């Protein structure tokens, strides 16, 4: 019931010991409370006067208070331990996410990862603070109570004991059936619920088509179907709760009737009979409480499992030791026979089917030596297939190709986010298995389609690579990145807050802020762009390009794009097709040769007014 990995958390043993002690005290308090109550009631039954009551009533009241204090104490201990555990887990999870890197994040999904961190920890807390005390109660209190009941009336004890397997049986059913049922229906269940949101999202479309009113009925029908599904899931759980309840109350009723019969026959005195009856509900209480919270804690259990799995997943290898001083005009980076596939999301046992079988087989055998940590991960189709690429000095290289040809993957590999399964990389003479190298990453700047903009001032955002940069340098960088005009229109200039919840910024402005970052940090000589302008409108793109061109001159630039206008401003173009380089060279020379580049240009349309090849 308890995740064994929980036991490794600091304070687990202490918390469990205290909980055990408190449960034990509570069990004794329950006995005391029931004893005092029974004794009082027996004296009432004997028609004794008020004078006979103080002692048993005091025993009852004292034990009652003690019992409630134990309850408070247990909750406090459980909550404290849960709080401490998740407070300790949170940074660990964050660090694990950091270590796993962007490619793992992309696979997992940003939303799902946020959910795991925030809601997952929340559910874990609920799980820990609910389950631990209740587990303890369930394993101690019924035993103590049963022993005492048995000593008073063995028949009642027997009834209670016999009810236990039934209860456990139904609790198991409750767990298994509900789990099966909800597992099976959960997806459908969610889908139906999401469908409502979808329908509302589609409302403008419906209105446009003039059918929005007719669709009202559909909303209702879908919701009603959702209701029936939900009721089916709830039905199972409630039926088992019913069974649980039923056997509990029935056992108490049977005990009462048994005791009544024995009393009539004179086989038992009033005190033991009443004592047994009063204790009977206490016997069932911890079990029922545990059953009641079972579902509430199920989510927490799964969440904890997800989190622990993440923490136990080895991080991709990372090279912190290689020394390298940065990219100079004479630097060289050489990729030789570099091959990369994404890990498959499915079960690791499924044999991977590489697109080129014999190459793949060779690779699979040798891969263990290059990336030993990932030997069990099965791979998807090859995305980069035996790339040979050399980059020199302040070269500007455009990587083009159809969508899915591996452009972004190559840029991510150069940034060190993707680790090649095969091939060698040589950086200024140093052979490296991958580029997840601290020294290398210190000198790159990665600018995706939507650059990272966080909640804070524009100046803070520009300072991201150099948090200590003085204001005047930030200002210069902002101006060089072409932000001056925009900043002039803002009342707070560089101090304007941006990011979620604050002033929104456009795609072009985000790109410029990312550029300003690069300019502020002179040590990032390598610029990696992944479709920087594709989503911008043509005029913004035009303006941004004018800012970008001078910056590109004294950097190594790798630009993945399908905007062909960049070709005239780069030194080299690399044409990718299905993960292979099919052509590379000076675009001015390659154009018009009828090769892969021309084919691509042709597919994209070209100048329809003047005709293609105006600048020949």
């Amino acid at each position, binding site marked *: 019931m308890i995740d064994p990995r929980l036991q490794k958390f600091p304070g687990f043993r202490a918390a469990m010991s205290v909980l055990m002690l408190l449960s034990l005290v509570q069990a004794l308090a329950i006995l005391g409370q029931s004893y005092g109550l029974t004794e009082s009631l027996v004296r*009432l*039954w004997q028609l004794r006067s008020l004078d006979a009551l103080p002692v048993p009533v005091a025993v009852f009241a004292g034990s009652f208070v003690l019992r409630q204090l134990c309850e408070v104490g247990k909750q406090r201990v459980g909550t404290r331990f849960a709080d401490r555990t998740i407070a300790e887990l949170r940074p660990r999870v964050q660090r694990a996410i950091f270590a796993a890197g962007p490619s793992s994040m992309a696979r997992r999904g940003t939303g799902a990862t946020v959910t795991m961190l925030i809601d997952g920890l929340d559910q874990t807390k609920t799980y820990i603070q609910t389950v631990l005390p209740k587990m303890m109660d369930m394993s101690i209190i019924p035993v103590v109570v049963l022993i005492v009941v048995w000593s008073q009336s063995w028949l009642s004890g027997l009834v209670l004991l016999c009810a236990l397997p039934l209860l456990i049986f139904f609790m198991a059913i409750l767990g298994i059936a509900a789990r099966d049922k909800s597992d099976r229906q959960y997806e459908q269940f969610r889908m139906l*619920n999401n469908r409502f949101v979808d329908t509302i999202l589609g409302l403008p479309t419906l209105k446009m088509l003039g059918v929005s009113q007719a669709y009202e009925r559909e909303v*209702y029908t879908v919701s009603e179907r*959702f209701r029936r599904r939900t009721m089916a899931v709830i039905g199972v759980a409630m039926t088992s709760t019913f069974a649980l309840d039923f056997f509990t109350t029935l056992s108490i009723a049977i005990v009462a009737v048994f005791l009544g019969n024995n009393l009539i026959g004179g086989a038992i005195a009033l005190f033991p009979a009443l004592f047994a009856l009063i204790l009977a509900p206490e016997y069932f209480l911890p079990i029922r409480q545990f059953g009641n919270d079972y579902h509430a804690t199920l989510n927490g259990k799964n969440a904890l499992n997800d989190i622990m799995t993440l923490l136990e997943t080895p991080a991709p290898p990372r090279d912190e030791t290689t020394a390298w001083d940065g990219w100079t005009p004479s630097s060289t980076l050489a990729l030789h026979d570099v091959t990369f596939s994404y890990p498959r999301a499915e079960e690791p046992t499924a044999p991977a089917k590489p697109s080129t079988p014999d190459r793949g087989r060779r690779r699979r055998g040798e891969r263990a030596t290059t990336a030993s940590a990932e030997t069990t991960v099965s791979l998807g189709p090859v995305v980069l297939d035996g790339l040979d690429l050399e980059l020199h000095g302040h070269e500007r290289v455009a990587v083009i190709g159809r969508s899915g040809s591996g452009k972004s993957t190559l840029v991510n590999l150069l940034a060190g986010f993707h680790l090649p399964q095969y091939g060698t990389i040589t950086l200024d003479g140093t052979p490296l298995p991958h580029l997840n190298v601290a020294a290398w990453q210190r000198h790159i700047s990665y600018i995706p389609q939507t650059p*990272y903009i966080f909640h804070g001032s524009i100046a803070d955002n520009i300072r991201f690579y150099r948090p200590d940069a003085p204001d005047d340098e930030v200002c210069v960088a902002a101006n060089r990145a072409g932000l001056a005009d925009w900043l002039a229109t803002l009342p707070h200039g560089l101090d304007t807050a941006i990011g979620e919840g604050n002033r929104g910024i456009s795609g072009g402005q985000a790109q410029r802020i990312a550029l300003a970052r690069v300019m502020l940090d002179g040590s990032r000589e390598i610029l990696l762009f992944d479709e920087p302008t594709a989503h911008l409108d043509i005029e913004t793109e*035009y303006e941004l390009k004018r800012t970008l061109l001078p910056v590109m001159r004294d950097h190594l630039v790798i630009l993945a794009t399908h905007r062909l206008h960049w070709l005239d401003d780069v030194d080299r173009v690399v044409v990718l097709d299905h993960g292979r380089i099919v052509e590379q060279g000076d675009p001015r020379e390659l154009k018009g040769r009828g090769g892969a580049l021309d084919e691509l240009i042709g597919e994209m349309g070209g100048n329809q007014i003047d005709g293609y090849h105006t600048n020949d």
Partner: protein
Amino acid sequence: MTETPMTATMGTKAADENVAGAGPQPHTATRHATPQDGSTSSTGQYSAVNGSDETNEDRTRPGLRRYLRVWRHDHWFWPYLKQNRVRLTLIFLLGALTFVCGAGLMFTSGFLISRSARHPYNILMVYVPIVLTRAFGLGRPTFTYLERIQSHNWVLHVVSKLRVQLYRTLSRDAAFLTEHERTGSVLGVLADDLDHLENFYLRTIFPAVVAYIMWVAVTVAVGVFSWPTSALMFLLLALVLVLAPMVSLGFADGRYHREKVARQEEYTRVTEGFLGLSDWVITHRSDEFAAAGASQFTTIAASRRERETFERHRNLAIQLVFGIAAVGLIVGSALFLTGTTAHADFAAAVVLSLFPLIDCFIVVAQAAAEIPLYTDSLSHLNALTDRVESHRPVDVPQRRLDGPVRTIDFDHVTFAYTPDDPPLLDDFTLHITTGQKVALLGPSGEGKTTILQLLLGDLLPQSGEIRVNGIPVRALQDARSAIFGYLNQAPFVFNTTIAANIRLGVPEASDARLWKALEDVRLDAQVKAMPGGLDAPVDESGQRLSGGQRQRLALARILVKDTPVILLDEPTIGLDPITERDVMTVILRASASRTLLWVTHHLQGLEQADCIVFLEHGRIVMQGKPAELYRMNARFRALYHLDVGESDGD
């Protein structure tokens, strides 16, 4: 106190949506002018839904009155309670019976044992209590079961109706319909609010009503034995059922809200950090990364710790009240039931029946503590209704279009979201005749989409008029779906079959017509290849279709509807150039005989337009046939060269 599986799963789902909504959607923030709290600026209105900018003054008002104020003008909660009085009475009755049986079981058992201990000469003397014991023993779980099934079923049924109500309300909400780039977050919040209402019924209203019914029942039942004891019980229960809930409400007031705001903040910070992970990795600042949202987390944890401590102590206090009540019952029995043995046999019965009732009463305080949570949700929904009600457009007598569309005129149109904003359109005049293909270009946020919304009549201009065949579009709202087809960058594909998606606007369309439309958009071969053909399901939100295929499917939908005017709102943004070119070719071919008004951000593919209109600062800065502009206008030429991939300036 029991968390049913439903509420548990719903919680997760709500959280999921939260995340989906919390993520900063990269493209969204840019389009609109700064959110103002003006009348039509949708961005501003929706941010109120998030609750973050509700005025502090409002928050600090004395609790109860604020809640009463929310409930007085309610459209989402009380109406359903009122509508279903019989059903609800049944549910409350079942709930009360559950506890009656629980108490009854202990009562009859106690009596049975006490009476049996007097050694009656015949078992028949205790026959009635024996039967009752069994009956109550059976009754309690049965009623619990029935009550739960009934209440959940009823609540879910109400949820169905609430959803329809939300749908209906939003369908009349201009702000919602015209928001160019709707994020899921608004809907996430609204859907969450509906879930909250669901829990309001299940976790607050039902248990509280049952508890108050039982309060009366207990007072009366104890009164049968002794009125003074009954008075004592009444007062003690008043502490539990009136004082404790009030204190809880006072404590929780504002606290949930603060936690929610901090939580939202945490989501934002963490999501931002995660989206920027690559930048964090190349700067090696794992410690700072790990600290994202940590201060919010600590704040929430501290607040929750206080709350949990309060709840523990409150529950302890309530339990102590019950301890006093038990002692009171014992003393009461001693005083009033020790006259005869016949009376004394009831002493154990009376005292023991108190304990099962604790479960019934103890939940009320917590239920009250959650009222602020639900009130927040309720006020969002009510604010939505109020806004929609107050912005109902003036009814204009609707007219029919006299024959086919001949002209579309924008006549000196000026539009701004609020009077304070600079106008998005400033004295915009455009004359379009039937069959023309007009492209609209201009930087983001320049009101290109607004032009389409004005033409549709979703937005009304501050001055000027938009006319079709000389008839103002305001008077053509009933006919608009027959005049305009609209295709935007993310066409909505419903999670149903291909056929149902295309038939959406014309339910009676024959299969042959569908195939014809699919052929026109060059999707026929792909659909034929799908298992099931026309009846092949489109997976959720059209995930199974690629971006280009979705556009074609949406276009097929418009073609089947056969509208004379097609409005395109950047239908190819986000597509790669080759797909973009394919889609545009298909669109232009399929709409050859129709009028086309086309918002775009690229020049490539515009060669076939009859007229290109460049907007800047709400005015037309360039206008003409593409070939003419190319020859005459250097700026156009430079942009065109850039777009088709040639170096500019030559």
